[in-house]
């Protein structure tokens, strides 16, 4: 119960930050609107039981920035590769649908991996099965990227250790 109060306070602080940074007005009227809507949203999240009490999602937050920088680099590199393919006088494609096994166990990490694959141009997640994804890939270089499982491993490392067991 004490942990639930802590996550309510974190949610309120986050919402205040969001309101202030989005509105930019600091007069009494605007701030009271903000307080009213924050109360409404917090009441709704408690009522819908969306607020987790263990806070395990916050623990993995520090590991994300490094992954995001790596992902941005990967995205730019494969963009340049795809741009070369598009602008070449003759388009050379090697279209394939490949199956890749996922190393992640939690739904959140699987979603992150599927979205990362789709965000990287040249590869596209088209189906999600129990144990892995079907990925549509446009050329040999992109297929090799998926086969090497670099991204797969990196996303798997983002998972908190304790959530691997309760995923099932």
């Amino acid at each position, binding site marked *: 119960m004490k942990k639930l109060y802590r996550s309510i306070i974190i949610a309120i602080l986050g919402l205040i930050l969001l309101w202030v*940074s*989005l509105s*930019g007005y600091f007069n009494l009227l605007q701030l009271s609107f903000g307080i009213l809507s924050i109360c409404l949203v917090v009441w709704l999240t408690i009522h819908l039981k969306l607020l987790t009490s263990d806070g395990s999602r916050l623990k993995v937050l520090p590991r994300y920035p490094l992954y995001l920088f790596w992902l*941005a680099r990967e*995205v*730019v590199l494969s*963009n340049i590769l*795809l*741009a070369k393919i*598009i*602008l070449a006088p003759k*388009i050379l*494609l*090697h*279209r*394939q*649908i*490949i*199956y890749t096994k996922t190393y992640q166990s939690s739904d959140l990490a699987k979603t992150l991996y*599927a*979205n990362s694959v*789709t*965000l*990287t*141009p*040249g*590869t*596209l*997640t*088209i*189906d999600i099965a129990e144990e892995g994804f*079907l990925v*549509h890939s*446009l050329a040999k270089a992109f297929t090799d990227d998926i086969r090497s499982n670099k991204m797969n491993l990196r996303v798997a490392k983002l998972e908190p250790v304790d959530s691997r067991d309760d995923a099932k």
Partner: protein
Amino acid sequence: MIVVDLISWFLIIFGSSFCVIAAIGVLRLPDYFSRIHAVGILDSVGAGALILGLMLQAGLTLVTIKLLMILVIIAITGPTATYALARAALDSGLKAELDEEDGSSSS
């Protein structure tokens, strides 16, 4: 300040040229699924570099925070919309044109 301006203009031109390349890709690539890949350029580097360039133009103001939020929202909704498009095509019976069948995909 001139350095910031130079970086921001480089990012804006980089992003908009990739938007043009994405448009060319949608026209030139042969089939439905390959064209979805070309749209992926727009989501990622096209919008990303443009917004980063605009953030440098805005400086440390509330506008930058709003642009950052737009960037995050695009990064999450772009792949989701792409996936929804691909699923809709597959579910309505469109077969992907492939250059090589993968043996392990049947398992």
